[in-house]
């Protein structure tokens, strides 16, 4: 055991670091999906495309400003706003028209997925494009150097997660959201503008995904097909954590992120994804409501 640790210790440490970064980003994406499911009771299949839009918009910002730092800061502000507006638009003109019927919504958001993906393909092209990180800074460990930017990504994701947590628990908007989540009819009777709450939750979910896209793109480049994988991973996270539970989402993101990191470093990424998807099946079989769910699913 000790010789194994001596040989593989640095590798395990690297896997844990990478896993933690993945976990934070994943938590950010999945939180958006989870909020939308929790409050609106719908599954947004186009969620991964909103993440992709964040990454692609970040490339455009980088291309326009021609400066990594300014491009990054512009994208950080503008991408969530633009994607949030797209989300509000889709809420108003698609989801409201089908009165948020769960299965119709899935079909409609599959349609939305194709529309966003193909429009991106038309304007952005099929290439995989790199975006420079806003700064270069390496943290030197005894065995290897590690990108400081990756740690910044983890830190900023943590900040956003706490922000959403505070918003939900402390603000009036959060109170309205929780009221709508618990019982929309009663919330309406008490004067909660549920229609507006729906729109803002959908925009918030999309904005979080776009933010994650902006943060991730210097690590893993932008292309129009990058949305599918985070979508599936956040499905996994949201199911394991319990649909609609914030705490569950974050815990599950760490379970998936870190185990994904470890399995990918020591074995193969494909195997990691296979095991993660199977894990979901097992969780659903044993505990249909997820780890922290209210057993509503």
């Amino acid at each position: 055991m000790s010789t194994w640790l001596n040989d593989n210790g640095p590798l395990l440490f690297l896997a844990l670091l990478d896993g933690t970064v993945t976990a934070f980003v994943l938590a950010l994406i999945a939180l958006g999906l989870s909020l939308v499911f929790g409050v609106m009771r719908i599954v947004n299949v186009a969620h991964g495309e909103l993440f992709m839009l964040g990454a692609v918009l970040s490339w455009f910002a980088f291309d326009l400003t021609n400066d990594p730092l300014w491009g990054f800061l512009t994208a950080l502000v503008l991408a969530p706003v633009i994607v949030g507006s797209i989300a509000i638009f889709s809420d108003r003109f698609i989801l409201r028209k089908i009165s948020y019927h769960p299965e119709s919504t899935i079909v409609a958001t599959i349609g939305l997925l194709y529309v966003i993906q193909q429009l991106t393909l038309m304007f952005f092209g099929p290439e995989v494009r790199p975006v420079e990180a806003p700064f270069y800074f390496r943290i030197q460990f005894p065995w290897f150097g590690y990108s400081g930017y990756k740690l910044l990504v983890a830190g900023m994701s943590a900040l956003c997660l706490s922000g959403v947590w505070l918003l939900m628990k402390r603000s009036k908007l959060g109170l309205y959201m929780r009221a709508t989540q618990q019982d929309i009819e009663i919330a309406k009777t008490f004067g909660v503008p549920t229609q507006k709450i729906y729109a803002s939750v959908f925009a918030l979910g999309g904005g979080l995904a776009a933010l994650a896209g902006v943060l991730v793109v210097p690590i893993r480049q932008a292309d129009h097909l990058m949305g599918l994988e985070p979508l599936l991973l956040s499905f996994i996270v949201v199911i394991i954590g319990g649909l609609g539970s914030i705490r569950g989402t974050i815990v599950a993101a760490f379970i998936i992120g870190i185990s994904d990191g470890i399995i990918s470093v020591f074995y193969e990424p494909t195997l990691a994804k296979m095991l993660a998807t199977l894990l979901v099946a097992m969780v659903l079989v044993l505990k249909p409501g997820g780890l922290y769910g209210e057993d509503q699913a």
Partner: protein
Amino acid sequence: MRKNSLNHSLLFQGGILMLLFLLQFILPTYHHSSVSKIMLLASYAIGYNFLLGYTGLMSLGHAMFFSSGMYSMGLGIYYLELSPLNGVIFSASFSLMVSLIFGLFALRTSGVSFLIVTLMFGQTFYLSILYFNEFTFGHDGFSLAKYLGSFVIFGKEYLFSNPDIRYNFALLLLTSYLLITTFILLSPVGRILIAIRENESRTQLLGYNVFYYKLFALVLSGTFSGVAGAMHGLLFSYIGTTFAEIHHSISPLLWTLLGGAGTVIGPLFGTGIMYYLIDFISEITKNYLLVVGIVLILMIIWFPLGIMGSVRRKWLKWLP
């Protein structure tokens, strides 16, 4: 009433099948091959519709069944040197087994969770085809043309890739699927399935074991899809991972919704229209998926019953 419905629908479907049979003599080569393809894909959609339209379970993982049929047939012929007929029988039993195991797990959930679970299982299956690429040939897929050989009907030798063989085998598959579904749906079992779609808890209250009926529908739907996949592999001599991708699970959903979920003949219309629409658009732009997306959104907003669903509501009340 039910007898009447049976007669009417057999007449109606018989007419359409007859039309398809006669079409092969007048269609130009290009459309001849398109229609064969449509009939195969429509068979897949009919299998899909059996679950969605009559039991109300929406799946996003049917590519798993389609490709499990296709791969078990192809790999069976490649490694076990099965004859094509035995290959199809093998694939039918394999996809039956896959859908049975899958159903025992997935049917513990319902509604949105069911959708996500089917999506996950489908993706696991796709990834495992890629992971075991030494056995399945991974992304590249493989061609069966060398291993199929020919067969003899009435003293004449035919290849599986012969256009006439392709057309008539596809038609045969479509015919048997249409007949089987119509008979099941008009039988008491079919009534119970529809009752489950309309109100699951009430059906349970009446003393039916809802789980077994749902499992039956899922296994039948999965096996139908698997055999359709096997026939597709056989007649086009190609086995590949594109048939296991998520996109291939969404397609039958689209065809079924467009044609009318819960109508036996609907998926055929939906598949045909969508096939030619995409065919037409691909000539103008490569981004035909954009149109697929727009059609999906518009349909679900303004046209949720689909073509045959609307026809049934307006004119043909007896349509199964």
